[in-house]
């Protein structure tokens, strides 16, 4: 039996489990909110074309519309100004082997439960590594905050001074890129940056540094609490959109039981 046949057999028996890290695309799922004079992220919308009726007697189908950055989605380097000149920086150009790879999960859920503005700092990463070993190069690093369990207003947690949700500090994300050469960074919140990320220098450091270095982002992930700290393999292939800066996608993780 080849390795792949063995893997397929393990999935069939449940020895390898597939965990869905994706939120349902739903018109009511929050999107990032920018000041209203800026262009906005389109919400997910679905219009019925026919439903076995006079508009199409034997079939049902919908037209759907959304932003590249609606729902659980992938950020390509070209999404940010720092990544505009990165080669193969759009979703259709990224080599496909980047879409399958190992993931580590840094559990920040306790900190995030006490402080909505919880920060992922080099110190937090160092403590995690002391327990689980050094983050392997070319890994996805997923920041678990259990934010995906929130719904309604608690998700964006928008106040008069902006949204409040956890994320990395500039030093934290730079450590992952410069010292660990990660593949990408994933979060359960609406963006890879903290809700208050616009107040760091540079603003939105995760977007700025990740994409400038040709790394990828995943956001609005779910079920990170079902992943081990190390050992999971992520399947995260965005749609092949010409010059796309990102894409909604189905993110799956393979974990051994």
């Amino acid at each position, binding site marked *: 039996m080849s390795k792949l046949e063995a893997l397929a057999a393990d999935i069939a028996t449940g020895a390898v489990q597939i965990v869905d890290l994706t939120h349902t695309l739903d*018109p*009511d*799922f*929050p999107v990032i*909110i920018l000041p*209203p*004079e800026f*262009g*906005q992220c389109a*919400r997910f*919308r*679905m*219009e*019925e074309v026919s439903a076995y009726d006079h508009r199409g007697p034997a079939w049902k189908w919908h037209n759907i519309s959304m932003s590249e950055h609606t729902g659980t989605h992938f950020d390509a380097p070209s999404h940010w100004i720092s990544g505009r000149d990165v080669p193969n920086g759009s979703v259709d150009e990224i080599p496909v082997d980047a879409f399958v790879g190992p993931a580590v999960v840094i559990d920040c859920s306790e900190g995030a439960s006490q402080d909505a503005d919880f920060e992922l700092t080099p110190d937090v990463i160092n403590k995690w590594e002391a327990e689980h070993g050094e983050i392997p190069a070319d890994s996805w690093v997923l920041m678990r905050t259990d934010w995906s369990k929130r*719904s*309604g*207003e608690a*998700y*964006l947690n*928008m*106040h008069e001074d902006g949204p409040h949700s956890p994320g990395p500090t500039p030093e934290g994300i730079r450590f992952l890129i410069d010292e660990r050469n990660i593949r990408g960074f994933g979060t359960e919140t609406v963006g890879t940056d903290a809700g208050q990320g616009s107040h760091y220098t540079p603003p939105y450091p995760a977007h700025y540094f990740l994409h400038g270095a040709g790394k990828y982002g995943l956001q609005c992930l779910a079920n990170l609490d079902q992943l081990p700290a190390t050992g999971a393999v992520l399947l995260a292939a965005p749609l092949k959109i010409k010059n796309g800066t990102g894409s909604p996608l189905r993110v799956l993780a393979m974990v051994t039981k």
Partner: protein
Amino acid sequence: MTQELQRPPKKNPQKRTVSPTRPPESRSRASLGLSAAAAEGRFALQVCAECKTVQYPPRDACSNCIGSDLSWQDIAPTGQLLAETVIQTSSRLYFRERTPWRMGSVKLDAGPVVLCHIHNDCERNSQVTMLNRLDASGQGVLLAIPTTRTNYMEDDPQLRALSADPKHRRILITDAWNPNTPTLAKALLEAGAATIFIGEAESWRPHPNRKALGELADRVNRENSGEVNVLPLDVTDTASVEKLAGEIGGKTDILINNARFIRPGGVLDRGDTAFAKNEMEVNYLGLMRLAQAFGPGMMGRTADGVNAAVAWVNILSVNALSNSPDYGCFSASNAAAYSLSQSLRGEFRGAGLRVMNVFVGPTDDDWYQPLPPPKVLPAALARAVVGGLQDGLEDVWCGDIAKDVRDRWRQDAKVLEREMTLGGEGA
């Protein structure tokens, strides 16, 4: 004297909902001037340009000098009741269902004797005031009412049939986010509305009206003076519109569509279609989604007793008539909505469901902030909506700017267009 109209009891679920019937609709083309005036609540008759004779009924040639230049002019709405009768039966189903019905003749101070409906509080030979109101067929008809107010006179069945009075009705306001919504809801409750439903989009983020609407709901609940319910509704999401119509479509008597997306700028300002698309999604397609979801149910309930479905209200920019390029894309979306409202009038007409368009100039909110006054305040808009419903209007012009644009548009649409599209002094 008119008895106060009582809040209707809960509907008997074993009884069939009464099907709408209508008074006769057909008129000569000359007569439609009366309907056009009634659409704005004006009492107007034709006046001969040659001999100044006031005409009744409407005609193509002057009854005095056979001059053919007869223009519709506002006439003093006063006169004296001459003769009257009470109709006890009729071959027209609409009246047969509503007898006894008081009719008679009035000698107008302006000259002619007119045949008209008569309010039950008018005394014999008394001085009366004439109303020109749209009936359930959307045609202007004349009703004589007492010149001195009587108690509960709006509750007279003949007058109420010529209005879309909010009293005892259940009203959906479609956009909780609009700055005018709390004031509008309050004004409708003060006018006797039984229930205000308010549609709220994107409840996953806070908006400035939430507190005010919550307080209003608590207060009316405490005082037992009505009901305010905030319910999920996003006019850009078909499923959400259908869901709410499924829940409350059968008890929505008046729908006020105040959902609006607005950004300043013309075609070249942004160089993309994103905001223009949002404007069409909310201002045009939103109206269409609401009409497809709520329209049929409301059309089926226009004869459903005291709180029958009665009116559909759109709040439109007066620049629907003529574009204002500083808000060029927004104006275009409102022109589309205005045109769609005319289609709806035709489609709702058979059921007697009225479409009332309230035209406003710049409103006093964030997106018109850089513009100087006058701007339409929420209180003025609320007065226009409530007054328009009470008077059964089709077209309401709210504020000086809306009235001014209307007048210039009627004088010469091309001249107005040229005024609105000045290029400024250049090389």
